[in-house]
């Protein structure tokens, strides 16, 4: 517990410092006319204080030396995140339908690595369902991309 708390406290302290420096560059105003930088600066000081407090209460417990909570299985997590950001990145060029199909197919294939038909059918159905709800019913203007829809 304490090792990850020390890590959290240090990261938060650095964040508070960076946030505070940036906030101090904005107009501070005075108490009557509070400026745009006043509230963020107060928050940065508050976060810095709370982070120091966390560090202070965590340090005596350092000898507990519990394992740092690294992810147990990196593969799925990294895969999903790559797919998520790739969907955003390729949405415009590929278009809504193709990007949605490829995204769903990739994730279903991850769940069923030995099968082809189920991910293919599932991705087709998902794409059709999403098209029906978001494009036809709600009229959301999605990028059309290479296929033209």
């Amino acid at each position, binding site marked *: 517990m304490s090792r990850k708390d020390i890590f959290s406290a240090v990261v*938060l302290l650095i964040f508070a410092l960076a946030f505070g420096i940036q906030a101090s560059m904005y107009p501070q105003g005075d108490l*009557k006319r509070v400026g745009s930088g006043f509230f963020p600066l107060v928050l940065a000081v508050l*976060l810095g204080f709370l982070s120091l407090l966390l560090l202070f209460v965590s340090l005596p417990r350092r000898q507990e030396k519990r394992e740092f909570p690294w992810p147990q299985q990196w593969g799925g997590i990294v895969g999903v995140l790559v797919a*998520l950001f790739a969907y955003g990145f390729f949405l415009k060029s590929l278009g809504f339908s193709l990007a949605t199909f490829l995204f769903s197919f990739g994730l*279903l294939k991850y769940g069923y690595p030995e099968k082809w038909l189920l991910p293919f059918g599932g991705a087709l159905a*998902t794409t059709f369902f999403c098209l029906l709800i978001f494009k036809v019913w709600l009229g959301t203007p999605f990028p059309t991309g290479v296929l033209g829809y």
Partner: protein
Amino acid sequence: MGFWENLLQGFAVSLTAFNIWCCFAGVLVGTLVGVLPGLGPTATIALLLPLTFKQDAISAIIMLAGIYYGAQYGGSTTSILVNIPGEASSVVTALDGYQMARQGRAGPALGIAAFGSFIAGTVATFGLALLAPPMASVALKFGPPEYFSLVCLGLVAATFLTQGSMLKSLIMIVFGLMLGTVGRDMVTGYPRFTYGVYDLEDGIGFIPIIMGVFGIAEILSNLESSLTGGKDIYEKRITGLLPSLKDWALSIGPILRGSVVGFFLGTLPGGGAVLASFASYTVEKKVSKDPQSFGKGAIQGVAGPEAANNAASQGAFIPLLTLGIPSNAVMALLVGALMIHGVQPGPQMITKNPALFWGVITSMYLGNILLLILNLPLIRLWVQILKIPYRILFPLILMFCLIGVYSLNNSIFEIYLMGGFGILGYIFKKLDFEPAPMILAVILGPMLEDNLKHAMLISSGDLTVFFSRPISVVFLGLSFLCVLFQMIPAIRHSKDVALKE
């Protein structure tokens, strides 16, 4: 207008064919979400928000509210049949509900949960209709100092609900307030922390944050465990959903007590269905002549908490509808939904939008009737849905998150934002930081800053304005007591035990 006239006006709004349909769709989707572990009501409401854009404000809120209390009920089905609570508020139901199912009494357990929820919903609807108007009229007297202090109280009270360290909850609140400062200053128009990114000028939308820290982070956590593992689902035929007379005799007291306890706990800032169900279970165990039977299949242990969590989800509407202050993340989303439809939640809602105000309140009663009609015959369907493997579900959830967040503003940037907050939410989970207080702070942050600036302006920079007005002093005093209480080791310990049990 009197109490009954107001209710009649509300029913005239909620009983139109389209609003009945919206309420039905809401409770159906809510129950489905409650049944499926891994996608809570907060993420679902965020996800389904775009679906309500085409509707008017009343129908949209009726539908979203239906999802909320539908999810409370759906969660109990999984608690009883699989011992996996679909929602945090159904954790307590699993203690005795699952034991009842193992003894072959799944039917009466599910039945009393449905009837208990219905009775609690009825009590809460009347409570809401009785309490909301006087509270709104008191709130009309609030100025910026009172609102500033009230928001402080709401934020500090949110730390009470989280399991574990109060210090970490406070850190999450400050972090959330910091996120709320990104974008143009509402008063001066000065851009803050935008770094030339146009999409950040209006601030970080709370929907990508919610979908990220609740939806995406949950998926990432689940991907750490095996995708092929099965659930031990109750396979026996469920019969006799109607509780016997003996069951009723044992349950009616817990249902009524749970309704009252749940309703009042739901109205507290930072309170909600989780706290209500735990409190009700504790009360029932204390007043029972046979406390040893709890945890071994006592029907009172199902009836009380189920009534309490349903009453609390309705009680939570009081601060939203009367003060414009959301008491939890779901209510915060409803604030967003109201504002998207051009309605400013707050004390003036009752006079400016009486149709919406009373329509939403009465729709909850309608929703409870629909839940009763819907859930008892559909229990077998929910059991089948429980069997859908997670490796099919998670791509669908992810897909809906992606498209849902994109369709809010047709912005690819929001997809990246959601992904970023997904990673952040996952890290928070790993480091034992609960995201709920942060969400509340993101939403209340701009309100806090705005009221601080206005309070300073009207008092010519005199900080004592917060301590010289009685209502403001009461709120600040309560906030201080909230922090102080949690620092007392005995109270902190009992809170941790209650939340961990």
